[in-house]
Every structure is written in structure tokens, then in C-alpha cells.
């Protein structure tokens, strides 16, 4: 954490308010973006807001590193009555991740958006983007079950339309967005249903209060079914295997900024909430972990295999990446469902790694698509020579996805296997091995197309992406390499997250 303390200076009065500012900043910024007169102003508002959110997240992370858990009571009412924010190490980690990707995405949108979205829409588009950012940040910070639903919807409602805006490039974005809306809303409603049962059994919505009362309650059908509904509902958002139907279409159809941001953060914040309920709210070693081990883990394993195979047979680059995301969520959930410190911290590490690499990959595809409207693998032939920097960044992301040494993906896979061995779950190791091999196949196919194939005759020649797109892209890809070499920061954050959730004893 010394790194942060060195770069970060802020008045103590602001630090005390940092948790709420992380969430309220983007909300206010969204209104400002909607009010701003031109596309350029909207973009600047977006960048400034995202930078502010990142700054405040860094403040929160340092605070969490110092104190363990940060509580913030809203409205001046003590938690069971009022709503409270509660930020543990995992929440702080995710906020840092989301805010960083948010800032990089906002920078990236300066050029990328103008090729994809009608300029008159930029103000509203940026407003929607900032609302989405605020929603995800609120989701990982809130300490209240119903407040989490509100933020789930804040992040979702805008996103449905943002995905649909991709119709300017590809009209398939529209049915994909509709599908996303149906799935997402059913998921959110299932979540509300589950929270309703927990509320009916405990009488509270505050997660800390709820965990105290659940521990006293013992086994109860309402509570158990409540958890099942919560996990199922969030599982839709997290794209856990049979509930992932919305994801490929949405990621493939959305404007590239939205794809980048969703791929890097959307599923992650839902996974965070699942982890929070299972490990933090439900008593340790109780029904929650059994549910995870017996139901979620096999599904996650199935995802890791089935969706990797689907990715191999896809023709479109973005859909390959999208199916790969579902498979990788399977890996993450496998790590988490081990329910040991090692497994959980490996899962969190993998989550961060996956966010960075998928962000770089989708950003790379978006950067390449600025000059060529390339969609299928064939249309990507030879782009490596025409746009070397973008292609290199894409290649770094792909290498991280495949788990090449010196990238973050390698360390993530390594720690996952170590965690699984430590927990004695050999079948998890086997699944990981098979899944990784399959990953290698489709990643190899992508890289071969880009670097070792001549362009199709008659294909339009690509140009290098503009500077404003290249910088965030290279930073995003660079982070995958940086943390692959010096992983102390994500390592310490994920370990702190895991011990914060289940204690270091186990």
C-alpha cells in the first residue's frame, strides 16, 4: 500500500467522505454530462468524473488497508435504520478495478465513440456510461441488501440502452439488448425475491445485522430458498453457466466502449455480491458454502469446458471473446467455490486479471475496428502488420488469457491451481487444465489470423488507431504485463480480501 500512500495526498476531511464520493461523484457527473452542450464537453465531464472516482477509490483503498473495514452511515442514521456503506478489502479492490477501467474507458471513448455513435447522442451516452460506473461502484460499496438492488438497476437500465445504441454499426445489437433486458430484469427480480425472503426471516436489510440474525436463526427454508434466489438472480448478471444467454450477443453488439466496460466490470460486481452473501452474510461453513460447492461449482466447471468449445467454433471475434468471458467466469467461480483462503484469493486474483485482459482485448478489437469494420476472424487477417500497436496490445491481452508466463493470466492460473491442490480438489485442477488447453486453441486461432495470415484479397487496409485510443489501450495491456511481473499489489489485495471474508485460519 505504500505505493498509494506515496502518490496520494488528500485532505482528511475528504478522506472521511471518500466512500460516498466514489458513488455520488459519478451520479452528479452523469447529470452534468447530460446537461453538457456538445460531444466534446460531455467527454471531458466523463473523463474528469471518472478520474475523480478513481482518486476517491484510491483514498478508500488506503483507508481500508489501514483499518480493515470502512463503514459510512448515510443520512446520519445508525445502520439497521439507515443505509450504510460497508467497504471490505474485496469491495475496495473491486472499486479500484472498476474506477481504473472506468477512467481508461472514458479516455478511450474520446475517439472511439465518434465512429460508432451519432454525435448528438454523445452527451446522453456519456451520462449513461457514468451512471453505469456509479451503479457498479455503488454495488460493491453498499452494506444494504435492497440498496444493492437499486444500484444493480442503476447500472443495468442505462446499460440496456447503451448496448442497443450499437445498432448504428450492427442491428443485431437491438435483439441482443432486448434479450439482455429480459434476462437482466428477471435476474434482478429474483434477487429482490431472495432479499424479500431474507427480510421476512430476519427483519433487516443491513448485511451486517442480517448476518448476526442469520447466525442465530439456524436452518430455515425461507432463508435457504432466499439464498438460492439471490445466487440465481445475481448469477444471471454474473453470467454463471446456464444463465449466460444474454452475454455473447450483448458484448458482440454493443459499442466498443460499452463492451470494454461491461466485459471488465459487469460480471465482476455481481460475483462480488454473491461472494458477499455466501461468505459474509451467511454463517461460515453453513448452507451458503454447501450451495456453492454442490450447485455452483459443477456449473462453473461445465461453463469452463462448454463455453470454451463454443468459443472455438465461433466465427466472430467479439463473440469468441464473449464466450471466453463466460468460460473465465467459470474459472473464477471454481476458485471461489473452494471456500478456502487460497481458493478465494486465487478467485479474486483471477477476477482482476480477467478484467484487465478482457478490457485490453475488447479495447483492441474496438481500436482495430475504427478504421476497418472487421467482425469475423477472416476479416482480421493481417491486421497485425497494418496496425502494429493495437495488434500488439491485443496480443498481450490474448497471451494473458492463454496464460503465457510473465503475464497476469499466468499467475492467476497458477494460483488457482495451487489453491485447488491445497484444498485437495483434483477435479478442479483437471477442469482447469482442460479449459486452459481449449483457451489456447481459440487464442491461437485469433493470433494466427492477425499475425500470420495475409489479408483477404479486396479487404480494406487498416490504419493504426489514433493516439487518444492507443494510450488507454496500451496502459490496459501494460497493466496485464506489469502485474504479471510484479504482482505484489493485486496479490496483497486479493489475499486481504480472502482473509477478510473467511479468516486466515481456514
Amino acid at each position, binding site marked *: 500500500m505504500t505505493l498509494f500512500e506515496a502518490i496520494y495526498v488528500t485532505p482528511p476531511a475528504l478522506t472521511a467522505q471518500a466512500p460516498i464520493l466514489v458513488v455520488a461523484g459519478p451520479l452528479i457527473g452523469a*447529470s452534468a454530462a447530460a446537461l453538457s452542450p456538445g460531444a466534446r464537453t460531455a467527454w471531458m465531464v466523463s473523463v474528469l468524473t471518472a478520474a475523480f472516482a478513481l482518486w476517491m477509490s484510491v483514498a478508500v483503498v488506503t483507508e481500508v488497508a489501514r483499518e480493515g473495514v470502512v463503514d*459510512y452511515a*448515510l443520512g*446520519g442514521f445508525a445502520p439497521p435504520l439507515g443505509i450504510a456503506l460497508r467497504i471490505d478489502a474485496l469491495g475496495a479492490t473491486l472499486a479500484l478495478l472498476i474506477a481504473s477501467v472506468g477512467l481508461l474507458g472514458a479516455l478511450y471513448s474520446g475517439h472511439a465513440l465518434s465512429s460508432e455513435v451519432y454525435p448528438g447522442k454523445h452527451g446522453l451516452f456519456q451520462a449513461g456510461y457514468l451512471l453505469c460506473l456509479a451503479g457498479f461502484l455503488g454495488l460493491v460499496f453498499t452494506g444494504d441488501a435492497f440498496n444493492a438492488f437499486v*444500484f444493480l438497476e442503476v447500472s443495468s437500465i442505462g446499460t440496456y440502452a447503451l448496448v442497443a445504441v450499437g445498432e448504428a454499426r450492427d442491428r443485431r445489437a437491438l435483439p441482443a439488448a432486448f434479450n439482455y433486458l429480459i434476462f437482466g430484469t428477471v435476474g434482478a427480480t429474483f434477487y429482490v425475491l431472495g432479499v424479500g425472503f431474507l427480510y*421476512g426471516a430476519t*427483519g433487516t436489510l*443491513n448485511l451486517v445485522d442480517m448476518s448476526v*440474525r442469520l447466525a442465530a436463526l439456524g436452518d430455515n427454508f*425461507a432463508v435457504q430458498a432466499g439464498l438460492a434466489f439471490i445466487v440465481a438472480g445475481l448469477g444471471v448478471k454474473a453470467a454463471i453457466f446456464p444463465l449466460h444467454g444474454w452475454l455473447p450477443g450483448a458484448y458482440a453488439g454493443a459499442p466498443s466502449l460499452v463492451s470494454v466496460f461491461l466485459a471488465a466490470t459487469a460480471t465482476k460486481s455481481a460475483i462480488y455480491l454473491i461472494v458477499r452473501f455466501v461468505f459474509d452474510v451467511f454463517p461460515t461453513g453453513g448452507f451458503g458454502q454447501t450451495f456453492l460447492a454442490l450447485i455452483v461449482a459443477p456449473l462453473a466447471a461445465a461453463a469452463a469446458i462448454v463455453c470454451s468449445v463454443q468459443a472455438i467454433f465461433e466465427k466472430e471475434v467479439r463473440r469468441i471473446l464473449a464466450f471466453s468471458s463466460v468460460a473465465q467466469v467459470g474459472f473464477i467461480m471454481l476458485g471461489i467455490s473452494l471456500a478456502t483462503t487460497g481458493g478465494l484469493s486465487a478467485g479474486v486474483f483471477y477476477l482482476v486479471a480477467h478484467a484487465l485482459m478482457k478490457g485490453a482485448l475488447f479495447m483492441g478489437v474496438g481500436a482495430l475496428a475504427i478504421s476497418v469494420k472487421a467482425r469475423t476472424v477472416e476479416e482480421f487477417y493481417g491486421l497485425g502488420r497494418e496496425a502494429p500497436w493495437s495488434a500488439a496490445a491485443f496480443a498481450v491481452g490474448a497471451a494473458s488469457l492463454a496464460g503465457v508466463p510473465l503475464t497476469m493470466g499466468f499467475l492467476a492460473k497458477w494460483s488457482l491451481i495451487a489453491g485447488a491442490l491445497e484444498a485437495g480438489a483434483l477435479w478442479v485442477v483437471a477442469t482447469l487444465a482442460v479449459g486452459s488447453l481449449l483457451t489456447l486453441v481459440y487464442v491461437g486461432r485469433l493470433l494466427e489470423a492477425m499475425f500470420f495470415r495475409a489479408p483477404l484479397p479486396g479487404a480494406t487496409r487498416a490504419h493504426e488507431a489514433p493516439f487518444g485510443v492507443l494510450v488507454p489501450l496500451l496502459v490496459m495491456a501494460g497493466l496485464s504485463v506489469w502485474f504479471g511481473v510484479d504482482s505484489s499489489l493485486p496479490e496483497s489485495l486479493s489475499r486481504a480480501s480472502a482473509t477478510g471474508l473467511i479468516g486466515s485460519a481456514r
Partner: protein
Amino acid sequence: MNAIALEASFALNVALLLMLVAIAAAIAWTRSLVAAILLMGVYSLASAVWLVVMDAADVAFTEAVVGAGVSTVVLLGATLLVRPGPVRVDWRRAIAPAVLVVGVGALLVLAVSGLASFGDPSSPANAHVGRSYLVETPNDIGIPNVVTAVLASYRGFDTLGETVVIFAAGIGVALMLGFGPRSSLPQPPVQPGEHHVVLRVTARLLIPLIILFAFYVLFHGDLGAGGGFQAGVILAVAPILHALVFGLHATTAAIPAGFVRGVAALGVLVFAGVGVVCMANGGGFLDYDRLFMPRVEAMIPPGLLGDPTHSHNWGQHFGILLVEVGVLLTVSSTMVTIFYGFAGRATHDVGSAR
């Protein structure tokens, strides 16, 4: 307990629920889309009546305004735009959903078996936090309507989120329908049909009344059912009625779409701004007790709201009022944005008063 009164209320509850089940079955059964939409409106009205029986006056008001009003209008508007044929029914398509629904339903029945009996005053849900609100509101907030107190103050952050969700919906609809080739076509000149005199006269009479009623609902929210959200929807009815009777073109000339979107953003800013002011005065976000600096609070005459001997939580009163105004601004302008979106897409032969 007087058993007769309770049993009568329970019988009413059962009757209304059975009615709802019948309406829901009809919605599932009918092949006509318009019939399904209207039945959905009836369902909302019936559930609003049921909500009154359940003592949820505020929710009933909202459900009547939103479910029976806005939702029905939006659904009908979309139906006009897509001009669908009858809904096709294929029994093969129905098997998998039926199995799924039966499975989920069975899980739900299992789940409710773990809940306390209906109406039990000592159930966890009613005994813990819910009861604390009833006990604490007179001291903490000092307004009669506990639902408003919880909505705007104790759980004000949720309400901020709710306002933002509405704002996001406005953004979404504007992104989908507010731009594009068709909406920018010049509107056909309005031809005032001489047989619409009744409508025009009534509308002229009603629009100011509607606006007045909206503000009544807004300011009455502290004392009874009502508040910013319901008031916002009612306020939005005024321009919508104007557009329906006098033509969309006349309304957008008076209230441009861009202005309406700006007001929606402004509402969120007002709400969040109240929170920031509380923060700047040394409290937490949305801590209305710190809304005024002590110096300012001392200047408020004690008899402003009647009884001067009673201690007033001025910060809470004004904070709640301000955030309700923010909600009103966002909700009403978003409703108008949604209406503009759908109505602006319409080809002119479906305009209603033309």
C-alpha cells in the same frame, strides 16, 4: 381482538387476490395484445385496491398512477408504433416455460413455509427495523407520514438511486427513440377538427387543475399518501394531455425535448446537491440535520409550521421537501421524455386528435 372486523378485512383480501389471479390468467390466456395491455391496467388498479386493504396507501397511489396510468399508456404507445398482429400461440413453445414455472413455484412454496403467518405482528419483518421506524420517526423526523420519512430520510439514498434509475430510463428512451430520421421530420400542420371542441375546452380547463393537483400531492406527502414521485407523474400528465389534444408539435414548441432532458438531469442534481450541502456542513451525505448551519436554522421562526412549542427538525422538513422536489423534476421530465420518444416516432396517421 374483534374477530368480525378482522375477518371481514381478510375476506376482502382473499377476494381481491382471487380477482388478481383471474385477471392474470386472462392476461396469459388472451391472444389480443391490446386486450392484454388493458387487462394489465385493470390488474394494476385491482392491485391498488388490494394495497389499500393492506394499509399501503402510498404504494396504492403509486401503483394506480404508474401501473394503471403510465405503464398502460407506454404499452399502448409502443403497440401503436409496432402494429402487431395477434399473438401467435404454439403449445410446443409452452412446455419448457411451464416446467420451469412449476419448478420455481415449488421452490417458492417451500420458501414461504419458512415465513411467519400472514399478519403476524411479532414476525421478524414486523418486529425489528419496521417497528423501530414507527417508534423513532416522531423524534428523528417529526412528520406524520412514516412512509415518507423512511423513503426520503432514513432510506433517502435508495430514493436517490430510484431517481437515478428513472433518469437512466429517460436517457435510454431518448437514446433509442429521441433521435433519428423519423423524429426529425417536420410535423404535419395541425388541423383543428371542429368536432374536437369538447376535448379542447375540457383540456384547457383541466391542465391547470392537473398542475395544481400535482403540487398538492407533492406538498401533502409529509402528511398523507403522496410525494415527489406520484406528483411527478401527475405533473407530466399536463404536457402529455396538451400534446394529445393540441398536437405534439405545439407542445414541443413550448417545451422542447432538450429542455425536458435538462430538467431531468437537474432533478438528480438537486437531490444529490442536498446531500453535498449536508456534507459541506460537516454531516454525512443526505444528513438533513446538517442541511442548515445552526445560524441559519436559528432564523427560522418557530411558529412556521403551527405549534411553536413543539421542537421542529427543520433540516429534516426542508431536506425532505427539497429532495421531493428533485424527484418531482426528474420524474415528470422523464415521463415527458418517454412520451416524446414514443409519440415522436409515430407516423402522423395515428395522432389522436388529428
